[in-house]
Each structure stands twice: as structure tokens, then as C-alpha cells.
């Protein structure tokens, strides 16, 4: 397979030749009748899974089946934040593994995913919150991640424009992870797609899975809108639609589908240095390389597959933004959109086998799936190739709810719209 490497030298050469030498990033193959491994879902996680299956675990004859176009779901709808600032032992090592993969992603893929480690700051508004964030910071350090507790004075130097003396929620400091940041979300999907395609993975678009074929309790293929495809193993990575797809295999999940909205303003000059999160409400904001302020907040809170939200949450998110940094009121909102997310019963994801032999499930990412993309793909590939969970994802079992081993960062209980 001919793969042309990207480089500065090549860019100059193409510029001098009128940019006529660029070729498509991946083939657009017809589905074959048989594969060893079929991955359902051509988003970030599915493409990353296929890439690592081929690259790290030496698997061949792999297909990714995508009902729309590659990267048409949540990998193109999120707020692009990458971070590993979790608390619990089942979570934090996984996200730190992901962070380490992000740090070498572009060299690995030879693709500019615009990974920018500009730091994240979680703001502190009370003494109790400082204690909680100090504990979280220590948990991060123990997992090998980085964390810094910032005083109010440190913060004023870094982000002078915040509303420090709000009567209700004064800002007392922050927990910073300097290695966190943002990445170009579509670029991540395209980079993994190009990498997987170059390793021989068939990326089949406009191919919706409509059923599973089993023999003696073992998976033997999938029915699709483009005909049946035999497969030795099938991996599902369709977060947002997990309930719908797994219902085809007769499984009910500890997941509800909810809509999460995101927003971007018109392009502005550089004003926000990294990612900021409001500790008194649910609001997070960063600035894209194009200049738009990218922000979001709570999910709408009711079951939805609509990929659009309603105005009360728009009002709520914007109110939080105004409370945190009043200057945001001068920016004009350019676009808002919604993505459908798998809200799991404990707020943490699932990467595991299923009761159907040879059928593997990856989902329940709540609104935190983007940052997990590399580690999710790696751990899912590990599980599919070896039959054993990757060490970093060993807690993400499907049966953890029945066993009582939930991973509940928020302590909100089995109420998906509170995670």
C-alpha cells in the first residue's frame, strides 16, 4: 500500500508544484465477505482500536464498519479537551495512559492532530473544595501524572480576567494539570483512519450494522445494510448508540443515551491560555487555534437521541460563563450543537467482553470519551486480540454493577443524568 509521509519538506515541495501531488488519506473499499475482526463504529474509538489492533497486536484482516462517514459522531462534536485529572484508582491510571499516548500521537501517526498541552485549571471556590482538589492532585501525582495547586495570586498572573470577587463564588485558587490541553478532534479521527488504512484495515463507510449472527452462542458475523459479513470477533465502539446496537444482540446495558451541548463563539484574539473549568457550576472553556471560545456545561438531563438540545441548558451554561468571566458576554455565539452520549450508571466507561462469545463492547463514555480515545483504542485492541483486559482498563468491567464495584467519581449513584 502506498503511503506518502507528511513532512515539512513535502509541504514545501507540494507548495512549489501547485499542491497537485496530495492523495486521499485512505481508500474507500467495498466490504469483503469475511474478516478476522470487525469493529462497528468509525469514530475516534473504533478507528483507534483498528489502528492498534494492526499496529501493536499484529492482527490482519480487520474492517471498521461505519453507518455514516468516518468521524461523524462524537469525535467531531466534543470540546477537544485532553486531560488526566481523575481521582479514583480504576480511572486515573487509564486516563494517564491515554495522556502519554496523546503526547506521542502525532509522531506515531505522522499526522498533525494539533495536540496542544496548554494546561487545564479547575477553579477552587471554597476551603472544602481546596481540600478535595488537593486530594485529587495527590491521586494524580501517584498515578504518574502532573498536578499543581495554584494560589489565588498564581491564578491572577495566569488568568487575570476571571471574576475573582464574585459575592457567591469567589475564586480561591485552582488545581492545574500543565500537561493537559486540547487536540484537533477531527484530526485525531483522520490520523487514526489514515494510519489504520495504511496498515491494511478496510474502512467501510455508509455501512450500518442491522444485526448480529451467532452460532452456538458465539458470534460469527454481522448483518449490514451492504450485506452480511462473516467475522471471527466483533468489537462495538458506538458510544451514543450503544443501547440501540447492543439491543440487536439481545443485551440491555447500564446506560442511558443523553444529549450534551457544546458552543463556540466567533474567532477572537488569543485571550484564554488553556482550559478553564468553573468549580461552582458545570462550565468549561478553552480557545481554539482559530480563536473561537469553545465551551460547554451540563447535559440536558433527559434521554435523547436527537443530537440537539434545548434552550434552558443553553441559558444555564451561558449564565455559568458570565459568572466566571463576565467579558464572555461581549463575544457573539457562532454555533451550538448537540451530541448523544452514553451516560453510564456510575459515570465511568465499559471495555469488556459480553455474554456473547467473541462479541466485545466499548462504551459508556459519558461526556469524557474524547480524551480517552488513544487509551480506549489501545485497551480495546488488547482485549480483542488477547482476550484479557489491558492493565489500565481492568476495572471497566460490564459486570461491575452487579458485583458492586462501581467507579463513581461524582458519588452520584445510579442516576445517569447526575454524573
Amino acid at each position: 500500500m502506498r503511503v506518502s509521509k507528511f513532512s515539512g519538506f513535502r509541504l514545501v515541495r507540494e507548495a512549489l508544484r501547485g499542491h497537485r501531488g496530495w492523495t486521499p488519506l485512505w481508500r474507500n473499499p467495498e466490504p469483503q465477505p469475511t474478516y478476522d475482526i470487525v469493529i462497528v463504529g468509525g469514530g475516534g474509538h473504533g478507528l483507534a482500536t483498528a489502528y492498534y489492533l494492526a499496529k501493536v497486536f499484529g492482527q490482519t484482516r480487520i474492517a471498521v464498519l461505519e453507518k455514516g462517514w468516518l468521524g461523524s459522531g462524537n469525535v467531531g462534536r466534543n470540546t477537544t479537551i485532553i486531560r488526566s485529572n481523575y481521582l479514583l484508582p480504576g480511572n486515573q491510571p487509564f486516563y494517564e495512559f491515554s495522556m502519554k499516548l496523546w503526547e506521542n500521537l502525532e509522531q506515531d501517526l505522522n499526522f498533525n492532530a494539533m495536540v496542544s498541552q496548554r494546561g487545564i485549571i479547575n477553579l477552587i471556590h471554597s476551603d472544602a473544595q481546596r481540600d478535595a482538589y488537593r486530594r485529587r492532585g495527590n491521586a494524580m501525582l501517584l498515578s504518574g501524572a502532573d498536578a499543581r495547586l495554584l494560589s489565588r495570586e498564581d491564578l491572577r498572573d495566569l488568568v487575570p480576567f476571571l471574576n475573582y470577587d464574585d459575592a457567591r463564588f469567589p475564586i480561591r485558587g485552582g488545581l492545574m494539570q500543565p500537561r493537559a490541553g486540547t487536540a484537533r478532534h477531527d484530526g485525531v479521527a483522520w490520523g487514526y483512519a489514515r494510519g489504520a488504512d495504511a496498515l491494511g484495515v478496510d474502512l467501510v463507510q455508509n455501512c450500518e450494522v442491522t444485526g448480529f449472527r451467532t452460532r452456538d452462542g458465539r458470534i460469527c458475523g454481522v448483518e449490514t445494510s451492504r450485506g452480511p459479513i462473516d467475522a471471527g470477533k466483533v468489537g462495538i465502539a458506538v458510544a451514543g448508540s450503544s443501547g440501540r446496537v447492543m439491543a440487536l444482540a439481545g443485551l440491555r446495558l447500564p446506560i442511558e443515551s443523553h444529549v450534551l451541548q457544546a458552543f463556540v463563539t466567533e474567532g477572537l484574539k488569543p485571550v484564554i491560555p488553556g482550559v478553564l473549568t468553573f468549580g461552582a457550576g458545570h462550565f468549561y472553556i478553552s480557545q481554539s487555534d482559530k480563536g473561537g471560545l469553545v465551551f460547554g456545561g451540563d447535559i440536558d438531563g433527559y434521554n435523547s437521541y436527537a443530537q440537539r438540545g434545548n434552550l434552558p441548558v443553553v441559558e444555564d451554561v451561558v449564565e455559568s460563563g458570565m459568572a466566571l468571566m463576565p467579558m464572555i458576554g461581549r463575544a457573539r455565539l457562532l454555533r451550538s450543537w448537540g451530541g448523544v452520549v452514553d451516560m453510564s450508571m456510575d459515570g465511568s466507561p465499559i471495555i469488556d467482553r459480553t455474554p456473547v462469545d467473541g462479541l466485545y463492547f466499548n462504551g459508556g463514555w459519558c461526556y469524557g470519551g474524547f480524551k480517552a480515545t488513544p487509551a480506549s483504542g489501545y485497551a480495546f485492541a488488547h482485549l480483542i486480540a488477547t482476550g484479557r483486559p489491558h492493565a489500565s482498563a481492568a476495572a471497566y468491567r460490564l459486570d461491575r454493577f452487579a458485583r458492586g464495584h462501581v467507579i463513581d467519581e461524582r458519588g452520584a449513584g445510579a442516576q445517569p443524568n447526575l454524573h
Partner: protein
Amino acid sequence: MLIPHPLLGPRDAQEFTYLGDARLLARPDGMAEGAEAAFYDYVYLRNNPAGVHRELWFHEHGDRSWLVVTRDTLTHDILGAELATDVVRRERPR
């Protein structure tokens, strides 16, 4: 979204808080055989349909009644609402 409250007429969905699938009304018997499995199903597993969904909304900033709202999760169209007490009386006559 406007929820057609059976007693109060159309009310803004913002006045309500959302709990989830109306199947939560049918709480398993904790003393029965197989209660552990039944509660695992009740607490954690959801049908999560794409389409018509019967769900529990609480009129927190209103008359504090529980409603069973029938809503399409693909379009957010609200197809009906009734008092949860009426639903329970109808579906589980004592």
C-alpha cells in the same frame, strides 16, 4: 419542551426534574426469591429506546406531583402525560 400536566395544563419542562424510565415505578419485592438479580436489573439496566419512551418527571417547582410523560427520544416530541399515581392504580390494581 412543554409538558401537558393533567391538572395544570401545559408547563415548561424547566419546572420539572427528570428521573428516568417509568419502569422504575415497578419496584421489585425485596423479600421475593431472586430479589438480588431483580434489583440489579431495576437499579442498573435500561431499555434506553430510540423512539417512544415512558419516563418519570417530578414537578418540583410546581405541584410536586410525579408524572409519567410519553416522549419521543428522537425528536423530543411529547406525546402525553398522566399522573404517576393514576398509572400505578391502573397497572397494579390492589
